[in-house]
């Protein structure tokens, strides 16, 4: 701490702070314009200048550090007159067109001019009528740049280069002055711009803006703070609502996103809410197979009747009900409660089954808790090495990707383990471009080197783990040479990666579906856990085993007990004590038998064991592997009811459709990948008969004979807290008071658990699980000579039910494609951009060829979002032994020209 005097006040402030930070922390307001905390502290506008005693010059307080004894004046006559002068100089080159400007009312320049009574200027700027030379750039579907309003504060450039670290918004020079080269011109598609709009968010004027801002003015709207419904990063933003319609979003400085958003969150998270094809009334399929509108009473009683009839006729094990990992915690809780209390079984699951069930199973087994160990901020700031395995966060978790790019830019080493040359490989110290499906071999190879070279953390192993000997024995065989052969990578690179990871003090493992979505997914996860244990990188800052959970509430859906083996909070259904607790809480006898996993439900349906199915908001016909198999399963059911927003492929197969509401129309919570429970809030109330999902479920429960009182989302969370020790301290009240809580949060005093396994692993002693490498279940052969891996792209999400309803996203990326190595393409005569056939043992589809070097020879890659290339027609439903997760990441295909 140092002592300074500001406007006569004596302050003791942090010695590393700037004058601006010190003043702000002490409630002394210094006006700013170009300043963006930690991003744009360049002192361009000089508005924040202050006088320092003994200095002739004035100093930009945003970039001047405090010193012991400094005597500072923040608003003398001279400062005020200089600030006015600065504003006049800025105005001299600014097209003053406030009436037509999107930023009217919120423009920082306008606000400052008002505050300082600057009404205009006689100064003749050098860049007047610049728009004649440098035209407005607005070919990008979302973003537009108008040079005539630009004040060249470089906030957008810093946002792009230092925060989003996209590096596509650069400055140029036009003779005497610096220009902003915004990538929104006619060539926008080839610029590499991710359209994330963080630049627009940063712009203090109307120069660089989201085009949709033209449709409203700041005083016409209300702002509703909520959580993004796409990936599990859990970005916080406001929905901007005008006349009961969401017209925009605005980033909020949330704990996981730090004011950043990606293109989907900013621009693809509200159009679908108001989509005209929303289902607004309950539908019951008639005898001809056509849907007919029904009243809620009809739909609920009909559904309850059909389900109870099946229970009566085929027994209580014949029903199943899936929650959705994109729904709110409260919805999921009620679904599993309904299944357990009304269906009388544990046949409930959620779509985590097909993405991260391997994580839940694997990490629970080895560490005692199946969740991401450390917060996003903790593993992307001030760490030495990031080991990124089977994860493409730039596209699948863009705001995490941005933070990894920040880390790398600030000196963090990056090891990418991925079959594809994903964007981050550009910055990676080492890229291990392994064959799909060889993760276990890779991890064993790393451990071989670490043990052989004595890079293990012997103390940690001794104090906190068990079965080290087993792993040491197992990996003896996994020499770099052998692993290199399995994985198709240079042995030396494995050695280097192992040394780099093991020797680093702070090194998180970050992984995603590239690890889990295999028939050996759980073993893949456990192998990574082994790696962290071996080097003692668990239970402390900047380390851990960090699955980036896929969907917005995939963590929460599992936490809420939409699992066939677990009640909320991973309390086991076959544990008598636990069950007794829930029987008491819910007032019914509960079934002790673990239920069927979602991926086992479909074969069971075909077999005739499952007769009735309730799904809350999933689209397995598109998202689950081997579409034909799912179609057959759904067709085998006696009764199928779905709660949905849209007429999805799966909904078309249902007997009853119950229209629920979206995240923007309800209160609730999502739990992001870092176990952070965050609020969603009602932004709009739409016309039509769609109802709160919890209300629908509660009505159904009552109709099925369970006396479920009507509860609000907040009351449901209180019930969750009452039965779930790890959620005991969480309530809407606390969250609405601004607390950010990561479970375990064991009581009302607890502030949550940012880092897990501190002190010792949750399991007590962590388990080394020796996993032998096993090849993927379907490998290329003469008939199907190519590997096919599936994955996400930045601009769409999952089955695209939400994102495809944003025109801009479709304009940016709206067509299914397949990545092919250029050598394979050359051999087969396939040209870049050509539509080709892709065929597996299970089906045949078309896709547009993208020829390049991103995938290795003999490998292909496809996104799973696009209805024109329904890739799950091809994928293999081979399941992992532990978690029953399907092998989306490896199947064998053939590709051929269409003529």
């Amino acid at each position, binding site marked *: 701490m140092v002592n300074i005097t500001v406007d006569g006040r004596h302050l003791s402030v942090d010695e590393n702070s700037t004058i601006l930070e010190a003043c702000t922390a002490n409630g002394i307001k210094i006006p700013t314009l170009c300043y963006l905390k930690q991003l744009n502290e*360049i*002192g*361009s*506008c*000089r508005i924040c*200048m202050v006088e320092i005693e003994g200095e*002739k*010059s*004035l100093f*930009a307080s945003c970039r001047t550090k405090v010193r012991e004894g400094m005597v500072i004046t923040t608003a003398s006559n001279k400062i005020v007159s*200089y600030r006015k*002068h*600065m504003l006049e*100089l*800025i105005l*001299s*080159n600014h097209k003053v067109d406030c009436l037509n400007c999107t930023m009217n009312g919120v423009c920082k320049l306008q606000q400052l001019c008002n505050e300082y009574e600057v009404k205009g200027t006689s*100064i*003749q*700027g*050098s860049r007047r009528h610049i728009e004649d030379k440098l035209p407005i750039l607005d070919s990008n579907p979302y973003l537009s740049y108008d040079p005539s309003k630009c004040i*060249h504060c*470089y906030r957008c450039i810093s946002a792009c280069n230092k925060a989003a670290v996209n590096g596509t918004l650069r*400055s140029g*020079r036009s003779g*005497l*002055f*610096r220009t902003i080269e915004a990538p929104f011109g006619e060539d926008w598609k080839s610029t590499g711009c991710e359209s994330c709009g963080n630049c627009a968010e940063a712009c203090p004027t109307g120069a660089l803006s989201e085009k949709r801002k033209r449709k409203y003015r700041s005083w016409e709207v209300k702002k509703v703070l909520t959580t993004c419904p796409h990936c599990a990063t859990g970005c916080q933003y406001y929905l901007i609502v005008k006349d009961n319609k969401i017209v925009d979003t605005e980033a909020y400085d949330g704990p996981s996103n730090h004011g950043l958003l990606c293109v989907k969150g900013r621009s693809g998270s509200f159009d679908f809410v108001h989509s005209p094809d929303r289902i607004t009334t309950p539908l019951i399929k008639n005898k001809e197979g056509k849907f007919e509108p029904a009243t809620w009473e009809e739909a609920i009683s009909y559904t309850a009747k059909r389900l109870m009839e099946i229970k009566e006729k085929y027994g209580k094990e014949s029903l199943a009900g899936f929650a959705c990992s994109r729904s709110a915690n409260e919805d999921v809780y009620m679904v599993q409660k309904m299944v357990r209390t009304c269906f009388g079984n544990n046949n409930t699951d959620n779509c985590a089954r097909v993405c991260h069930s391997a994580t839940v199973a694997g990490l629970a087994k080895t560490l005692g808790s199946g969740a991401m160990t450390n917060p996003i901020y903790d593993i992307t700031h001030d760490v030495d090495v990031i080991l990124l395995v089977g994860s493409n966060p730039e596209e699948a978790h863009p705001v995490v990707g941005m933070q990894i790019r920040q880390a790398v830019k600030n000196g963090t080493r990056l090891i990418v383990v991925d079959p594809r040359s994903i964007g981050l490989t*550009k*910055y990676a110290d080492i890229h291990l471009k392994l064959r799909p499906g060889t993760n276990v071999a890779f991890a064993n190879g790393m451990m071989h080197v670490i043990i052989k070279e004595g890079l293990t953390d012997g103390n940690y192993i001794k104090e906190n783990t068990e079965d080290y000997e087993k792993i040491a024995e197992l990996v003896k065989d996994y020499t770099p040479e052998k692993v290199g052969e399995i994985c198709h990578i240079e042995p030396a690179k494995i050695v280097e990666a192992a040394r780099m990871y093991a020797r680093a003090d702070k090194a998180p493992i970050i992984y995603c579906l590239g690890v889990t979505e295999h028939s050996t997914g759980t073993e893949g996860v456990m192998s990574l856990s082994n790696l962290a244990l071996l080097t003692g990188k668990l239970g402390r800052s900047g380390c851990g085993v960090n699955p980036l959970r896929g969907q917005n509430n995939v963590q929460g859906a599992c936490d809420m007990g939409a699992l066939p083996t677990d009640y909320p909070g991973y309390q086991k259904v076959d544990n008598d004590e636990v069950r007794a607790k829930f029987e008491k809480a819910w007032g019914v006898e509960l079934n002790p038998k673990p239920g069927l996993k979602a991926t086992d439900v479909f074969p069971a349906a075909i077999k005739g064991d499952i007769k009735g199915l309730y799904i809350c908001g999933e689209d397995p016909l598109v998202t689950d592997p081997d579409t034909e198999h799912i179609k057959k399963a759904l067709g085998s059911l006696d009764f199928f009811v779905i709660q949905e927003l849209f007429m999805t492929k799966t909904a078309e197969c249902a007997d009853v459709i119950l229209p629920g509401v979206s995240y923007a129309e309800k209160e609730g919570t999502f739990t992001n990948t870092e176990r952070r429970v965050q609020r969603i809030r009602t932004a709009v109330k739409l016309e039509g008969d769609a109802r709160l999902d919890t209300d629908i479920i509660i009505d159904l429960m009552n109709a099925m004979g369970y006396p479920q009182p009507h509860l609000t989302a907040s009351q449901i969370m209180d019930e969750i807290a009452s039965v779930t020790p790890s959620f005991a301290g969480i309530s809407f009240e606390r969250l609405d008071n601004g607390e950010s809580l990561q479970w375990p949060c064991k009581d009302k005093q607890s502030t949550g658990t940012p880092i897990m396994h501190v002190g010792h692993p949750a399991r007590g002693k962590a388990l080394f699980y020796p996993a032998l490498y096993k090849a993927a279940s379907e490998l290329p052969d003469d008939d199907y000579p190519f590997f096919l891996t599936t994955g996400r792209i930045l601009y769409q999400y999952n089955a695209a039910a939400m994102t495809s309803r944003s025109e801009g996203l479709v304009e940016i990326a709206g067509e299914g494609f397949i990545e092919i190595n250029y050598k394979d393409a050359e051999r087969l005569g396939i040209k870049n951009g050509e539509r080709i056939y892709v065929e597996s043992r299970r089906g045949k589809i078309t896709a547009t060829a993208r020829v390049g070097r991103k995938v290795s020879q003999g490998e292909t890659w496809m996104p799973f979002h696009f209805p024109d290339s329904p890739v799950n027609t091809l994928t293999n439903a081979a399941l992992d032994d532990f978690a029953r997760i399907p092998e989306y990441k490896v199947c064998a295909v053939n590709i051929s020209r269409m003529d």
Partner: protein
Amino acid sequence: MTRRLTQKGNMNDRMDAALNKFRSRMTSYPPGMCPLVMYRTILQMSINQSCGKCIPCRDGLVEAERILKKIIEGDAEIGALDELKKLSEMISETSDCAVGVVAANTVLDSLREFPDEYESHIKNKRCVENVNQTVPCITLCPAHVDVPAYVALINKGDYAGAINIIRDRNPLPTACAMVCEHPCERKCRRSIIDHPINIRGLKKFAVDQITADQVKTPAPNVATGKKIAIVGGGPSGLTAAYFLSLMGHTVEIFDEHEKLGGMLRYGIPEYRLPKARLDEDITAILNAGDITVHTGTKIGRDVTVEELDEKFDAIYLGLGAQLGNRIPGKNSDCENVIPAADFLQAVARGDAPDFKGKTIALIGGGNVAMDAARTAVRLGADSVNVFTRKRDDYTALDTEIESAMQEGIRFTTLLSFLHLEADKDNPGKISAVWLQPEIVGEYDWSGFVKTEHSVTKYPYRFKCDYLIIGVGQRCDVEVFDKAGIPTERGRILADTACMIEGKEKFFSGGDCVTGPSTAINAIAAGQVAAHNIDEFLGYHHKIECEAKAPSPMPNKCIPTGRAEIEERPAYERKNDFVHVEEQMTPEEADRESGRCLRCDYYGCGCMEGGRAPW
């Protein structure tokens, strides 16, 4: 991502090539230009250099430039000055880096340095009087010698003509050929293309071809009957005598030394200006007209000021500055502590002290100090050690310092004088000089770096046999002061017309007015004084000059090297007092003189005002 080395010939490299030319363009910025226009250029350059980040630099300078342009073009009201000042102060105090701060400070400098020019632009919508572009070499020569004319004559092979052209303004062509500091070369337009013409070198070539005493001086005017006394037979007095005698006046020169020449004889060492060569100039001067010389005659001792006043119609005081300054403090009058001027004079008189095998310390870095140092080497000193407080103290010509270094003189800077240590064994002598290590600090108002005592280095004792003090000279003005001639700190107070307020018959110029300076400044003073004495006596006498500048040929402006005059090898020259400079060859002189751009004809030189009437 692939990293790359900076490509050779990239934009910055190519710009550097252009910037070098731009630098030359600045070096050769012609005299007689509007300073505000120049400041606007600097300001524009600063605007160009703005990175565009901070508002005051990026947009404020543009506004300042707009105001300055309005002022220059006569479109501004008097309030514009205040507006420009306030804006510049704001920019200076708020810019983020030196680009903006210094640019604004430059504008503030201009307001401080050129208030007259600003006012003239606003009130009269034009520059102050006499701001006209002029021929650089002629303008910058204090005596305004017609350089292009004599360079052209040298090119033609007419060396006598060249000497006559020089003499029309400067009757000491030989001395100047050897020792002139050649300010004429400073802004030579040739710099735009390559390098300045070696004007002094060409002059030397001319007097090496035909000695000055062989070239006939112009015929003097018929006798006017006016008598003029010249006190001091140095360059200033000789020049005044020359012109006054050509005007037909009777001139009597009084000098305390045995021989004429002043500092040219008793200050500048033989190896730089052989006395035989000086005599060529003096012989020519004394033969020009009615000149009587009284050597060994000191005013105040042999003749009184009153006597001069009584006997002569006008008196010119060209006393020079021959008293070497001593350093203050104890032991400074010891016999082995010698002012440089006294030392040089003693050597010139043939009374050189015995320096053989001795260790010599020398404080000072001016031309006189260098002369003393190089003389000491030639006297067989074991080592000659020059100490200065800072690098800026080396005011001697770079070539002098370079030559001194070649001759083995040791230079140490950042040492200031502390005190003198008396020799215990030899009363009246010192045995060592104590020096204080310094570190450099900020610059002072005049642009010279200041120093302060180092706190980490200990004082330094330098053992020596002799200490030479080269820290300036002054004039012996006591007698004149007593006679009512106004003086101040060893200088006579005369104006730029060499007139003395309240003493209308008395004129004065040269080192005794300016303090120690160069020969050509003294010559200019003698010339101005002669002219003004003639005017004072009621005449407007003209001096004939038979030589004429030949018609110029257009110069193709092809970049060509500058022919330098080499010195004899250092290992050889340091052992004797023989003239150090080699001769320029005729082919070198031909090429060198051919480089002249003849600015007297091309450009402004042929226009009214191009050659200002001095």
